């Protein structure tokens, strides 16, 4: 469903993402782990067609992102970091706008809005201005936008950031449920989320993939480590140590 080949991104002389390749099939939930500034968001922005890669290719559902961006974006849902929203709109009108850009009009539009309002627990605020929402609601509104067209590919940049523990639990559950018939990538700093929602995880450090496997496989990568937390720290820290040499 998602196929990424030799993706590379340079900003000036700085290499943000260096030769990243991976595949995500339908029914898979891939967790993107890595320290801050490791290149997670940059990779996701290239997969969603927002950034143009310096080299490499991305295809969604067999459609090349660089050749036919509008067609590839049709099957994609994306929650950017920090959940941006148009502050002058209400929740329902914002979702309506997104639905229309996805080609959903008329009665189907109303139905799609109602469906995601219900899924993301936004019924209470449907006519409230986005400006006046709390962070959790804003986040869920943006999340609702990403699933309004029931996409086959879902990319979520820190979907649980800024949510309270109950909401986090709910969102993880939702990702896991949706992962049964979609290809999902989500990034996170919270390692428990990997066990809670992912079928596979990838650790990225300084633009490179340093580990890729099921949560169980990852736990066994570094001898002597029992938890993901320890593995994460030993992999990414050893890289940092090398830099210091």
């Amino acid at each position, binding site marked *: 469903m998602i196929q990424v080949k030799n993706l590379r991104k340079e900003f000036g002389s700085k290499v943000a993402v260096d030769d990243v390749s991976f595949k995500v099939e339908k029914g898979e939930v891939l967790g993107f782990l890595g320290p801050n500034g490791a290149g997670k968001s940059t990779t996701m922005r290239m997969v969603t067609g927002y950034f143009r890669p310096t080299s490499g290719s991305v295809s969604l559902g067999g459609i090349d992102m660089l050749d036919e961006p509008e067609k590839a*974006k049709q099957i994609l849902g994306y929650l950017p970091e920090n959940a941006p929203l148009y502050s*002058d709109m209400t929740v329902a009108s914002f979702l309506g706008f997104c639905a*229309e*850009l996805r*080609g959903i009009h008329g009665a189907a539009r109303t139905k799609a809005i109602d469906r995601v309002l219900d899924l993301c627990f936004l019924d209470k605020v449907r006519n409230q201005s986005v400006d006046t929402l709390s962070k959790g609601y804003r986040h869920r509104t943006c999340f609702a936008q990403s699933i309004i067209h029931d996409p086959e590919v879902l990319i979520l940049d820190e979907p649980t950031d800024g949510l309270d523990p109950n909401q986090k639990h709910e969102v993880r559950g939702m990702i896991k449920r949706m992962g049964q018939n979609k290809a999902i990538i989500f990034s996170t700093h919270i390692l428990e989320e990997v066990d809670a929602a992912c079928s596979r995880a990838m650790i990225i450090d300084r633009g490179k993939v340093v580990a890729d496997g099921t949560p169980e496989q990852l736990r066994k990568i570094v001898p002597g480590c029992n938890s993901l937390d320890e593995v994460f720290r030993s992999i990414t820290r050893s890289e940092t140590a090398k830099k210091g040499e």
Partner: protein
Amino acid sequence: MNKRDIENTLTVFKREFLAYFNSPVLYVIVVIFLLASQGFAFFFSRILDSDDVSLATRFFVWHPWIYTVLAPAVGMRLWSEEHRLGTIELLMTMPVSPWQAILGKFFAAAFVWAIGLGLTFTIAMTVGYLGDPDSGPIISGYVASYLYAMACLAVTSAISAFTRSQVVCFIISVAFCLVIALIGDPGITQAIVNAVPNGFEWLVRFVSYFSFMDHFFEMTKGIFVLRDVLYFISVIAAALLVTDLGLRSKRA
């Protein structure tokens, strides 16, 4: 142009226009524009005291200066706001082409001006009541005025694509529109010609040829020449192309 192009452009247009409509911007700008355009005509140009009912020298003549300040005030939010809120990332990962978004937004701002300029119809009625003016120059004056506003707006759109700050966009756009208005002024052109070394006169004249002013005044005089209309349309097209470049550079 296929159906999808039109639908997406319309969707962006609708959202953008509602954003103007739901904020004070639309009302403030339209009211200030009406006050300024009518005030200048009645109090500075003393349109009622003259025997001459031509709108060109008493009404339209002020418009370039009003647009220099007010058009950037309308256009500055177009892309700066998208950058600041981060919604550009949403918009550009939707199945929408940059051109559909650029045109949708531009038309929304253009529609704000259509309302503002449209509401000055009372002055056309006034001169029609007081005298017996030719309708030709009035119509071509309105077309010229609207095209001038659109050119300023397109320039602002281009500058807003490069910055996340509306204030920066506003100041640079006003400066740009001011310069492009001034270089067409015969007095100023002559002053610069006198100041530059010999042999560079042609360059000054060449640059001044790009001013909006000449084309604007030709049209308000009632000389409706395709050349002047095409000039404004190509300025608008060029500025929107630069908008596209600006958006690309931010995503590169």
